């Protein structure tokens, strides 16, 4: 098992940072009027870990005895949608975005089913059951609206814990019905502490410079940092000497794509870039991440005067990637515009 999962804290007391938040969670769990909550914060900051710990605090260790069910829904056009549900006796965990456009169906069906039955276990500490909704920010608007009424109507039987990376895509009525809990990214010192504790448990020495290097590289993502630590450990077990932190495959590929944009600007090259973009998309890399990584790398290499327009285009097409349906068109348009800018700049012409 990887370090990340092996040394994941199991209870709120074990958590390493954001102590004030942890304390508040402990006191919340002690009361019977536990509210609906919305955990938000960047990836790898510890949202899910806190949710799991919170559940344990609410009901005891039995919540960590999980099982997975696969439920099949029929959409209006009779096509099957598989949704995986992780559940314990006290709670249930959904990722409705698995169902794509039909997440509303999932929300309505499952929540009603759960909400309409009472807690069976008489020994349970609380009368309500908990539904954890992952990736709440990728819920469609319809699905979010479907949540609104349920949240009030079945308050007696049901508490929702939403988990999202940002609140911006959660509609205001839901935000106002939830207790918002921000789980910020850990600071570098906090991350170093965590890495050290991992190293201590694994009984190896972690040099300071390696720790800082990892922390800087991972940009506040503790999951990434821990995985990188493990990868480095595999490279050289004693973590000595100069260690190069390997970039993940998709990032390397994105950089390669950016390089080919920079080295030549022509429709023929655009075609090559298109096939690279397809390659990234096919390998399940989200378009928004591609645009972000490309832009990051392009900005390092272009003239100062081009930076603002490129960022503007990136923002424009990033939004389109989110709202549109065929992302490749928007990615390609972005690359085409950047190429045109670069080429015009090199030929000393005005681009629009």
């Amino acid at each position, binding site marked *: *098992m*990887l370090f990340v*999962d092996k040394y994941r804290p199991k209870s709120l007391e074990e958590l390493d940072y954001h102590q004030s938040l942890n304390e508040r969670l402990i006191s919340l769990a002690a009361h019977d009027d536990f509210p609906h909550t919305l955990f938000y914060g960047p*990836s790898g900051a510890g949202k*899910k*870990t806190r949710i*799991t710990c919170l559940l344990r605090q609410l009901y005891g*260790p*039995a919540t*960590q*005895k*999980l*099982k997975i*069910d*696969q439920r*099949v*829904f029929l959409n209006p056009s009779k096509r099957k949608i*598989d949704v*995986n549900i992780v559940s314990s006796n006290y709670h249930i965990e959904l*990722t409705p975005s698995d169902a794509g456009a039909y997440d509303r169906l999932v929300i309505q069906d499952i929540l009603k089913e759960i909400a309409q039955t009472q807690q069976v276990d008489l020994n349970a500490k609380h009368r309500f059951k908990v539904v954890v909704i992952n990736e709440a920010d990728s819920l469609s608007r*319809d699905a979010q609206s479907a949540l609104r009424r349920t949240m009030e109507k079945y308050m007696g039987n049901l508490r929702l814990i939403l988990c999202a990376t940002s609140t911006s895509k959660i509609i205001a009525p839901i935000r106002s019905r939830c207790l918002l809990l921000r789980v910020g990214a850990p600071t570098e010192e906090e991350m170093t502490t965590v890495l050290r504790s991992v190293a201590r448990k694994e009984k190896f020495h972690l040099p300071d410079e390696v720790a800082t290097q990892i922390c800087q590289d991972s940009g506040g993502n503790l*999951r*990434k940092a821990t*995985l990188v630590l493990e*990868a480095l450990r*595999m490279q050289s077990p004693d973590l000595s000497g100069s260690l190069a932190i390997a970039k993940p*495959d*998709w990032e*390397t590929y994105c950089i390669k794509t950016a390089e080919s944009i920079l080295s030549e600007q022509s*429709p*023929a090259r*655009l075609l090559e870039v298109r096939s690279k973009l397809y*390659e*990234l998309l*096919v*390998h*399940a*890399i*989200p378009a928004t991440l591609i645009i972000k990584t490309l832009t990051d790398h392009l900005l390092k290499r272009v003239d100062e005067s081009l930076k603002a327009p490129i960022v503007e285009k990136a923002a424009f*097409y990033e939004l*389109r990637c989110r709202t*549109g*349906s*065929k992302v*490749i*068109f*928007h990615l*390609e348009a972005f690359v*085409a*515009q950047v*190429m045109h800018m670069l*080429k*015009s*700049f*090199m*030929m*000393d*012409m*005005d681009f*629009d």
Partner: protein
Amino acid sequence: MAPPKKSSSAPNLPKGQSSLSTFFGAKPSSAPSTKQPRSSPPPPPPKSQPKGTIRQPPSPKKEAYSQSSATSSRYFKSKSDLTGSKASEPVVIDDSDDGDEEERQPPKSKSKTRPKTQVVENPIPKRKKAIESDSELSDEDVSERTKRKKKNNGGTQSNPPPVQQKRKTEQTASSSSSSSSSSSGQRSRSSKKVINYVEDEDDEDGNEDEPAPKIKATQVKKAAPPIKASSAPKKKEEPAEVKAQVTEKAEDTKPKKPTFRELQARKSAGPINPGSKEVPVGAPNCLAGLTIVFTGELESLGREESVELAKRYGAKVTGAPSSKTSYVVVGENAGPKKLDQIKKNKIATLTEDEFLDLIRTRGAGQIDEKTKKKLAEEEKKIKEVAKEMGAPAASSGPVDTTGMLWTVKYAPRNVKDLVGNKTNIEKLQQWLRAWPKSLECNFKKPGPHATNTFRAVLISGGPGIGKTTAAHLIAKTEGYTPIELNASDARSKKLVESYLKDTINNTSLDGWYSGGKVDRSVVASGVQISDRTVLIMDEVDGMSGGDRGGVGAINALIKKTKIPIICICNDRKNPKMRPFESTCANLTWRKPETPAIKSRLMSIAFREKLKIPGEVMQQLIESAQNDIRSVINMLSTWKLSNDSMSFDEGKELGNSNAKPGMHTPFTLYSELSSPYMFSHTSKKTLNDKTDLYFQDHAIVPLMVAENYLKSRPVLAQKEGNEQLRSLKHLELASKAAESISDGDMIDKMIHGPQQHWSLMPLHGIASTVRPCSYTYGPNMNGFPSFPSWLGQNSKQTRLSRAVVDIQTRMRLSCSGSRHDVRQHYLPAMFPLMVEPLIKDGSDGIEDVISFMDDYYLTIEDRDAILELGLEPNNGEAMVKKVATAVKTSFTRKYNSTSHPIAFNKGIETGGAKAKQLKADTDVPDLEDVPEEDDQDVPDDVSVESEDDLSKDKLVKRPKTSLSKGKRKKV
């Protein structure tokens, strides 16, 4: 003969562009990033050039016309401004482009003068000045200046005299060559006498070897207009100083035979200078009796246009010259074979201008005696035929024909009236006549056409060419009573059997009727039959759905029928028709020749007092693809409102009735991006272009998105040098890409939750028409490729599913979402899955399997993880490094041991759900899990304790239940 002051910088560039090319040509092209253009020293000031026009390429013609009416490109340009790209277009590029297009809108007589004015002047000084002054201005100034400039242009347009004068002064100042001065002299004349001038022009163009038959050849070859000369490099030897830019052209001068690809590309590339010449209006039928052949590329007319033009005036257009050809219109790059033929047969040749002139000058009365006679004869014949046809024969009594369809009213009444397919008709007649005898000898004697061994015939052929009519008519003339069953009758197996079986097998009929006088009777089945009956099964390929087994039943009947059966279908190749192959004689009806149909239809028109000229009728027939019925129906509807039809009306009617279909995504895209589609000579309206999208609105946008980068845009070809051209190309591509992106946003609104289907036209424009309006031009690969989006998308869906599957399995041990799994876990896991096998060989197998078990991954998930890796982690490449023996032993080992599974697959909702829950509770391990003190990750299926020794036992213990679970899963 060599053109003296040819634009030495860029000979085959369209007007105005030479300025850019010379400008950039003068610079070292290898240093594009330097600020060269702007820092160049101030040049000598231009003559009387208004400041407002500084950035414009200095052809004065341009100023005059850049303000002319809005072209489609202008429409799209303004649209692009709306959609977010900033209004200040790169002035140099866009102006030259737009102005260019507008300029080509032929302003009557003036269009002829353009080439000369453009060539003689030297644009460099003004150009430099322009840039110099521009660098001092801010961006706002630029846009403002553009506006001002436009105003300026309006001014110059309104009072042409100054322009004319300026042009003259410039010309005389910059060039001293005799040719230009003489041509300027000509011009002054030309402005007064248009026709006269054009003749002069024609003569200049005339090549030495050209007889130039009808037109007076007085002022032969005084001076050669430069553009003309460069556009016909084959005839005149090009001077060596042609710039690199024209290398393609130069290659053409070599007597190398072009490949098929090249010819195709050349054909699709169209005329060099579309629409540069005014198309004259001639007297109707002025070319009647002439046979014209077109060869090579004309300068202003495309092949289709020119053929249509000739036909409009009554000429006959053939493909290859022969002794009967009256004229050959020779363009550039004419086929050498045709030229030989022309020489051999001594056929008169015409240039494009002479051809246009012929139309202009030749009166309708100039038809020679022979043709006149021929026409008169034709007319007489038409009248004769018209007399014969019409109302049904008197024998059946007076019938009111007013309500009758023309197709019925004028249906042929004699076998000789049938149009076309004479041999087939004869064969059918012979077969039917010989049928009783064939039956006697049990179909052993093949007969003259080898058809007499069959009990039935299968007539196939396109719609509206007289198959059914012929079958009925022949049956009647041979003394049979036809019984027709067509698609309007139910023809299932049961019905066919019950209705027809006894009828057909009734051998006693003959004897029964032969004695009595009764020749008609109603049999119990309800089908009327006489003693000699023929069964006509019409539209047999239309048997589907409700007619289950019908084809088989008919075929079974055919095998033992005692009466002849005629089956009729459209498509013999249809798989449904296969049973008939062995049992029926095949008669394939072909489309009748146009002249044959024409004479028949002219008779009908005459009888109905509808005035249609012959060429209009011909055009109508061609547009209906020789479907007689369709043309008759068209005419009958037309007669309701009009009494005559002109060429254009006929064309429109033909187009509006054109048969749909025949379009594949490939042809649709090819048409959209054809080099003419958006040229200003194109007669296609925006609606016509959007219609192409509506032909297949799902695939066409994808075709555009796939192929727009693979075209060689016409708009970019006008740029002066290679660099500017590639920049322009890129600009066009980026605009197209932007528009495609817009289109997707609209698509989302159509197919999203709101379903705004009324946005379809807008989607068509944004996703299809507008991108094509930028990048239209010949395809680089010759043929458009099929959208790769479809394949890539399904692959993406598959792999995304795989990620979700992996994440679900890993969910019990890790917390990340599927994105986290893909972006962080997979790169970290990748080496753990493969590297032990590479490094340690079969010793690594244990490690990999235990790692997989930690995360509940199956061997399929492992494959998916390997497939999900990108380039440095490329799964296939990595797996290749693993020895085959290790791979097989890995698989064997994995399959031999049992593994924890995270969950059971759900099967169905409802009942299945309950069952599945039961299956979950069946797993006994649930109870075995130590609850409080379990430090390991708890899971429902398997338990692993820390210590290795007990592991084997523990894994083995749940094996029975696991395999049970597995079986359930399957």
